[in-house]
């Protein structure tokens, strides 16, 4: 069922939409200190919807794109998304639960972890703010905003991913835990 090229088409379309949304939309739909990160949402959503080693490359690419488009250190979001991708897939497989609810839980925790890890890396780079201020004014508001957007976007991505994917590519508990 579905052609082998479907996941690549889906990833390409999602990547293009995420990049355009980040450039055209994100800076102008901020709510207070919170600005959405469409690229990170797309990376983690794809990691859950189309799990596999190719999603690492997808996360890396989107993360690198985010770094090049923004003013932060190049490589930081790329590293963050690759790590979060791996942890999200690991959690997904260990839980062995393919329900939408569990996917949402992993997505939301992944988005929180992503903002936290990125903030910590920026602090390591010399970002002159306190950890507490970073948590209150960036990590938590941005995570909340990202979760709201992820709530809407993930089911769409998952729907198209399931339509195109071969049945044996969706991991379940019976397949066993393979770690990374």
């Amino acid at each position, binding site marked *: 069922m579905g052609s082998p090229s479907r996941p690549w088409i889906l990833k390409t379309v999602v990547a293009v939409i995420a990049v*355009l949304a*980040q*450039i*055209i*939309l*994100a*800076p*102008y739909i*901020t709510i207070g*200190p*919170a*600005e959405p*990160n469409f690229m990170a949402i797309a990376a983690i959503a794809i990691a859950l919807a189309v799990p*596999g*080693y190719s999603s*690492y*490359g997808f996360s*890396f690419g989107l*993360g*690198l794109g*985010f*770094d*090049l*488009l*923004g*003013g*932060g*250190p*190049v*490589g*930081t979001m*790329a*590293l963050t998304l*690759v*790590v979060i991708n*791996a942890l999200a897939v690991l959690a997904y497989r260990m839980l062995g639960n393919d329900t939408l609810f569990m996917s949402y839980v992993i997505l939301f925790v992944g988005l929180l972890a992503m903002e936290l890890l*990125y*903030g910590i*890396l*920026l602090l390591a*780079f010399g*970002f*002159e*703010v306190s950890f507490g*201020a*970073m948590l*209150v*004014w*960036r990590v938590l508001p*941005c995570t909340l905003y990202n979760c709201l957007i992820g709530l809407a976007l993930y089911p769409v991505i998952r729907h198209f991913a399931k339509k195109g994917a071969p049945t044996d590519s969706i991991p379940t508990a019976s397949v066993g835990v*393979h*770690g*990374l």
Partner: protein
Amino acid sequence: MPMTSRVVFGVLLLISILLMTVYAREGEDGVLHSIQDGVQSIMLPISSVGAAGEAALDGVGQGITDLTADPQTLSGLREQNEQLRAMVAQSEEYRQEAERLQELLNLTNRYGVSGVSAHIIGRSTDAWNQTVSIDVGSDAGVKTGMTVMAAAGVIGQVASVTPNSAQVRLLSDPQSGAAALLQSSRAEGIVRGSLDGLLYLENISADTDVQAGDVVLTSGLGGSYVSGLLIGTVARVEGSPGDASRRILVTPNSTATSMEEVTVVFETNSSNSNRASSGSSSSDASGATAGQSSSDEAADEGAADEYDETEES
């Protein structure tokens, strides 16, 4: 294929760490910085779509607000308009008097600003940086470190430049810092941005009396910003004189709005007169703060809130 996954994960992790290390060690002119500037420059036409959309929505919103303004608001605005007209007329009198006095004393007008006009055509794509993109770059003489002003005051400093565009780091950015002084007491400090979007005046000596409404100007110390330009006014002082941990909040006089016209300041006329007296031929704006003559300081006392704006292409 778990082994393949681990290999791919490991390789990408290493590449990311390598990129971060190279970025941290190289200077502003390094390869990764240049690639980052190039990508941002290429994406500017796309980001300007968002900027135009925001400007249009702002205009519609303002139109609706104007249409639905109640009579009390309108009469208040008319009264304020009359007061401002009277103040402008009085300021014009002072300006002409100052010009006459300057001619008498053979002094130049030190509050002319020369620079290049630009429009804000994009905003930062992430929540961690407060930057805007403008549509002029090195081809127009813009250099890193130059001060950027909107109609009513300083908004930030040029952080990076490409031939046809530049990134401006706003004063509200947590990584921003402008050497400043209080107009009333001439006490010097640093205006810093923060994650909560507010400006804080720091390093003011504890015994300086700071009141809400005090005007904050750039001091030009350290050469980071051209001196004598308006930043904003003190909004609130949390603490009292003598309290070393008091916080001074500053309301900026200008904010960066999409498609708004801004000026990249090359230099003020004060830097021209300083170079003329010292014989220097440098045209870099960072040299604008190389000392002030005592006659200039004596002449400008109390006139720091007026300046003319001129443009050079």
